[in-house]
């Protein structure tokens, strides 16, 4: 972990209407980051915005020292981040937090990404692919236009995919089973409006996979409501899994106790608070006490 007050931006790309990928050069982070870890980013010096913003390490290139962030513009900070250009710099702390526990060799793995949740899972996928593990990847979004990185994910996943799966459906969006036949390493897509892949939540696809009883380990990132469903599916099928959580952060390094989430397994009967920034952001799905 280190403090890098001026990390140069190599490139800022707009991927969808509100999602951007920023690449930076920071060999120390590229060299040490593990999938699931995050960076705490001071977008501007001074007061606006005041606090750092946490973003997952999205991709690294250990050779070139490049790292990438993938983010959605949701508020003031991300709006200002989107204005950054090549040559500007960012102030980073990281890599922070506990990353994903990598699966045992040969384990059948599925990654479940809701929206921008693909950010950390893509780095995990890079790592798994590098280790010869070719997981199923389930990608969810509201509409086809908001789907992120499908092609890049496909490239990393062993085996091909049906091409038509990925083109936006013409005509009335209908219910559709997003499952693809080529296996191992399937990329499945779900959209809320059915404009691409399965119509419905990405967790429907996970339910299908789990019913097939071939998945041994699941990694998920996305909105809390989605993760809650993932956790309950995993419990129902008795499958292991990890989820990456989000919470508002102050320090990012375990000092301020802002970012806690309720977990099982502490001293207390009901729950104990653990810090998303330090004990997380990745938790065992079964350890999280979900709110409503």
């Amino acid at each position, binding site marked *: 972990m280190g403090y890098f007050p001026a990390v140069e931006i190599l490139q800022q790309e707009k991927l969808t209407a509100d999602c951007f990928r920023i690449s930076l050069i920071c060999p120390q982070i590229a060299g040490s980051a593990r999938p699931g870890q995050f960076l705490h980013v001071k977008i501007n010096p001074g007061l606006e915005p005041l606090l750092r913003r946490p973003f997952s390490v999205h991709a690294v290139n250990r050779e070139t020292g490049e790292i990438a962030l993938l983010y959605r513009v949701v508020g003031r900070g991300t709006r200002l981040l989107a204005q950054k250009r090549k040559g500007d710099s960012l*102030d980073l702390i990281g890599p922070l937090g506990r990353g994903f526990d990598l699966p045992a060799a040969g384990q059948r793995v599925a990654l479940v990404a809701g929206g921008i949740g693909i950010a950390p899972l893509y780095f995990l996928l890079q790592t798994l692919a590098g280790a010869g593990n070719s997981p199923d990847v389930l990608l969810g979004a509201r509409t086809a236009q908001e789907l992120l990185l499908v092609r890049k994910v496909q490239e990393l996943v062993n085996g091909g995919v049906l091409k038509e799966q990925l083109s936006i459906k013409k005509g009335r969006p209908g219910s559709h089973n997003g499952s693809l036949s080529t296996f191992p390493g399937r990329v499945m897509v779900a959209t809320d409006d059915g404009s691409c892949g399965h119509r419905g939540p990405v967790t429907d696809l996970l339910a299908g996979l789990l019913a097939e009883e071939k998945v041994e380990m699941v990694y998920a990132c996305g909105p809390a409501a989605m993760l809650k469903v993932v956790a309950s599916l995993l419990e129902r099928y008795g499958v292991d899994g990890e989820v990456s959580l989000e919470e*508002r952060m*102050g320090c990012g390094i375990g*000092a301020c*106790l*802002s*970012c*806690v989430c309720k977990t099982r397994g502490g001293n207390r009967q009901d729950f104990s*608070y653990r810090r998303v920034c330090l004990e997380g952001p990745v938790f065992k799905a079964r350890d999280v006490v979900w709110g409503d």
Partner: protein
Amino acid sequence: MKKPNLAVEIAGLKLKNPVLTASGTFGFGAEYTPFLDLNRLGAVVVKSLTLKPREGNPTPRLVETPAGILNSIGLQNPGVDSFLTEHFPSLRQFATPVIVSIAGNTVEEYAAVAEKLSRAAGIAALEVNISCPNVEQGGLQFGADPAGAAEVTRAVKGATGLPVIVKLSPNVTSIAEIAWAVAEAGADALSLINTLTGMAIDVHRRRPVLGNLTGGLSGPAVRPVAVRAVWEVYRVVRVPIIGMGGIVCAADALEFILAGARAVAVGTANFLNPRATIEILEGIEHYLEENEIADINELVGAAHIF
């Protein structure tokens, strides 16, 4: 020119420089060791401890506001015993005094925590937090009136031989009045200010943002209020003051010192820049050199005479 003197004395405690950490923003110190050498700090003030562990408030616990943050941690802490066994041993390895902040639901609890800590060797001083706006008890019900503040102070003084610093709240009609009462009750030093009670509302969900509804405002936004508090208190009490509230750079710290603070504590700024304390320290040293001031103590309260 000779290096200027940065050492100050607070509550009988000799500090190598006047830059401290503000309770609750610096964990138990260890969190910041990847970023700075704790040995360089004037003192480390740790998160407030209570007799028993506390879980704190529901989330969200933090929200950013203009030039500030609202927090409602609610004194989550592992309890004094667990602090002494798990956190303190490594922290006391550093050549920097450790000041332990304490809180309680009752006067007796404050005294009990103080007593436990006094039995442990190596603690430099206690900071008595009677000013947390984020708990039902043990916070402002003692800090909001002179009698309650004095009572807690007396109880803690009675329970410990350690220097006692009392941390005051700005959420009062007259902080000088409370300071006076606390000083009369035997406080060896004062810390001011704790956070201002505040609130943010989520206009989309139409409910308060924080799980605890209200929170404590800190950061640059509150600095003018904090500097004024130090200024006012300096005029009425003679015990040393530790100033804090919105310090992010050396100039900010100097405002407090000129207003009457003998030391300063850095809180929210640690979140923005994990090396803030060190950079502030270096900036103060630079200011002294540039202005050919041999001793930081010459500046304490200097803005009162012009």
